[in-house]
């Protein structure tokens, strides 16, 4: 019972979600079946949404579930279904490709792990989990206002150099809006039926 009480539930849930995300990503890599790849990718991205919510980014986690898992992956699965001929469902990779890419991937992974472990925690991880009040004051207001150009989370930035950059994200927001419109038109143009273009 003492062991049970000593468990840090934040860490526990983190390890559950992290193992889910990594294992399903790895399964996605090793399987050759494109339909199974799509399914494993769905599960890995869902576990990542859990990680986001665990880190306090509730809104981004919800958006991950709605846009990524609910939108982008449905698009991908439609693509899989439209191209799922017999010979394209399972496509074997040559052995040489595996050896080369696994070698490059492992060396890059070692580099990234060293970089991650050398990340200064700025005084270590936050220890006092018990002092967090049960009332959740999280809201999406700071995110929405930051997209409109007002940073309510950094009104009192003491550093003058950093204070110049506190102008919010209005311009990127507008650019992304126009970009989505362009992408919509471009995708419709690219994917239209070829027969109409020939005539």
């Amino acid at each position, binding site marked *: 019972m003492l062991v049970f009480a*000593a*468990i*840090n539930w*934040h*860490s526990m849930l983190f390890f559950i979600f*992290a193992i889910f*995300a*990594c294992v399903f*990503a790895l399964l*996605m*890599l090793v399987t050759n079946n494109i339909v199974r*790849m799509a399914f494993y990718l769905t599960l890995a*991205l869902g576990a990542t949404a859990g*990680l*986001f919510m665990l*880190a*306090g*980014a509730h809104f*981004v986690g919800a*958006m991950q579930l709605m846009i*990524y898992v609910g*939108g*982008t992956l449905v*698009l*991908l699965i439609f693509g899989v279904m*439209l*191209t799922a001929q017999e010979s*394209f469902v399972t*496509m*074997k990779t040559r052995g040489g*490709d595996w050896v080369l*890419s696994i070698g490059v*991937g492992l060396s*890059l*992974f070692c580099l*990234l*792990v060293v*970089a*991650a*472990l050398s990340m200064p*925690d*700025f*005084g270590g*991880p*936050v220890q006092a989990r018990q002092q967090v009040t049960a009332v959740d004051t999280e809201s999406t207001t700071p*995110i929405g206002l*930051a997209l409109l150009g007002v*940073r309510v*989370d950094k009104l009192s930035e003491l550093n003058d150099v950093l204070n110049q950059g506190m102008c919010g*994200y209005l311009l*990127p927001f507008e650019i*992304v809006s126009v*970009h*989505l419109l362009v*992408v*919509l038109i*471009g*995708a419709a143009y*690219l994917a239209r039926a*070829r027969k109409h273009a020939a005539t």
Partner: protein
Amino acid sequence: MYPLTEPIGVSHYMIVGAVMFIIGVVCMATKRNALGVLMGVELVLNGANVNFIALGSKYLRPETIGLDGQLIALFVIVLAAAEAAVALAIALNFYNNHATIDVDRADELKG
């Protein structure tokens, strides 16, 4: 010194992000199906997003990059959706023209 009793730091999140990033890169390199390559790209973007969220989380360390991490992650999610739509349109166009989805057969740069 059991891992489950220790609080987790930002390094744990970054290692998870690194694992997803590397698996995405290897997926892009090895898959022969164009849609498999596309799924690798999605995994790479997610690995980067995990890092952004971890560095912006006030639960993991006292000094963070604040709300910027969440906002950049939101932009990445939206741009990934746009990228998937265009890439899927290109893949379907390629499939209609060449009757294959194998990226190894896409070695001629004319329509």
